């Protein structure tokens, strides 16, 4: 075990995979500075600064991955992905299918997510739901440095295009990370905390907020289960449904806006497949359907906070 921030864990995962597999290369604006250790060890051919051109960065990853390379591109902030949607969604997500399986696209797109540092809506915009809605892509969002390492290593080894969202705040938060070969399979959620009377399904930084709420509820004598999805797509329905069948109550928590978000998908899945087990309405605590404000006075109100989660759970069991 070593203590690493999520950003350090990402670099460690990249380092190990680049050492393991010479086909892995990284590209992006400033990756040479961000991942100096990679540049020093693997050289300029495999760690490439790019022009400020998100479209061609993603398109290049698509072309390179079809040829057998395993590119990892850093798009910095999720909203910058909007210049690369054509390449990620129309090309990487569809050309395997449209070609009758002639090509595969083992690439990873890293993008920063989360409401932080008064960045405002053009840097802070949680977009994971979009990539879950589009076909042919996988989506992961770690909630800790250890998850970041394990999920990124698994994403790099996956044969499909994977969106890897890195939370800005967690990026600077230290946490224990297993040394060496630490892999977390895509598509498997984790039970972050076991409980009996209600289930909280969440992911990314909201896992910490939810665990905080669960601790408070425990003091109040309420045992709550917290599920950390880890992978948004493919979704680990089994784990979610099993928990809800046990507790009968569900609160979904995420920072992204509400309409057509991941919370809607979780809620709808449960309302269809575990309806009989439900003892109460399914609640969603999410970011509002607004852009993210930059003012430090407004920013803290965007994401759900622990007290709201506590209140929501109490409302369900009340």
């Amino acid at each position: 075990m070593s203590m690493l921030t999520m950003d350090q864990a990402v670099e460690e995962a990249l380092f190990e995979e680049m050492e393991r597999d010479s086909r892995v290369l990284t590209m992006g604006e400033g990756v040479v500075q961000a991942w100096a250790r990679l540049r020093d060890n693997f050289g300029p051919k495999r760690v490439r600064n790019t022009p400020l051109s998100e479209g061609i960065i993603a398109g290049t990853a698509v072309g390179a991955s079809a040829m057998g390379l395993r590119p990892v591109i850093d798009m910095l902030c999720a909203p910058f992905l909007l210049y690369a949607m054509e390449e990620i969604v129309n090309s990487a997500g569809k050309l395997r299918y449209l070609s009758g399986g002639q090509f595969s696209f083992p690439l990873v797109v890293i993008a920063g997510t989360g409401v932080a540092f008064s960045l405002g809506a053009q840097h802070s915009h949680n977009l994971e739901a979009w990539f879950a809605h589009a076909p042919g892509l996988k989506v992961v969002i770690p909630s800790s440095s250890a998850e970041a390492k394990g999920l990124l290593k698994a994403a790099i080894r996956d044969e499909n295009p994977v969106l890897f969202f890195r939370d800005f705040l967690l990026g600077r938060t230290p946490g224990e990370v297993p040394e060496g070969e630490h892999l977390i399979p895509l598509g498997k959620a984790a039970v972050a905390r076991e409980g009996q009377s209600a289930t909280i399904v969440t992911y990314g930084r909201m896992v910490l907020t939810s665990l905080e709420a669960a601790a408070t509820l425990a003091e109040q004598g309420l045992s709550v289960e917290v599920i950390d999805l880890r992978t948004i797509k493919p979704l680990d329905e089994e784990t979610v449904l099993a928990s809800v069948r046990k507790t009968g109550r569900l609160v979904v928590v995420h920072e992204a806006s509400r309409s057509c978000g991941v919370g809607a998908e979780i809620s709808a899945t449960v309302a269809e497949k575990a309806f009989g087990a439900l003892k109460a309405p399914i609640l969603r605590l999410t970011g509002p359907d607004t852009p993210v404000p930059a003012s430090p006075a407004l920013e803290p109100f965007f994401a759900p906070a622990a007290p709201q989660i506590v209140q929501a759970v109490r409302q369900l069991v009340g």
Partner: protein
Amino acid sequence: MSLSLPELLRRMLLIRTIEERLRALVRESKAPVTSPTTGQEAAALGVIDALSQDDLLLTNHRSMSHLLSRGADPRRLLAEIYGKRTGYCQGKSGFRHISIRELGVMLTSTVVGAELSMAPGVALALAMQDSSAIVACFFGDGASCEGVFHESLNLASLWDLPILFVCENNQWQWNVSRKEAQAAARISEFAAPHGIKSQTVDGMDLEAVREAAQAAVAYVRKERRPFLLESVTYRLRGHNSIDPQSYVGPEELAAQWARDPLHLLSQRLAQAGVVSDEARAQLQREVDAEVDRAFAFAQESPFPGPEELLADVYA
């Protein structure tokens, strides 16, 4: 490939015959809609003839000339157009995004500009694998209106990528004339500011295209640098096989048909005594028979089963 002039003529006849047959059949709803390359056969064939077998191609929605020039099997090609299981993409693509990996035809997209966004990655892989192969990226004049065209040129120049950018400037972008869409006089002029060499050639003249392409290919292969070749050609048919071209002036169209690359080549080969009119008539008969067989194969081939809907989403 460096094919003989008679063989080049045969391929042009094959392309023309298949596309005109498709146009005839679509009127009787006996064929799917397609986007004819009629008028652009020389621009495609001249470049592809200058490539070697291990070079890679990217094309787009208007790919018939590229695919057949490269040696695609007309039967599997038509089967794909008909959405049949025996098609190159198992029927999933239809005519719009046909890629044929076994022939080095990579990653065809019908989204205009996508060929340009994917080409650098394909070339980067060749570079990192120390291959001597190069990438030929075929795109239209309309694609050069998409910003990613410039991003692609910049990256190719910056990273020394072996890409032959081939713009088939056919003067039309669907029903919009190039002049209405682009201020530039020549598309090749966009290369220089990015530090890329370029040339503009008469895309109706097969031998001129081939000569320019041979020089360009040699440059890209030797220097491991990009090059932009613009073929000035013309879309003699509609945007697709059911487009009446009502927006094209009849005089303009007539003038362009007078430049028909197939006619030009036939004439020249006849005059040079390389392929006599009789020999050409014989070639045409052979091609007709081959095309008959190909259509029969495509039409009689089985469709994919419903289970295919869910197949090949993920690797």
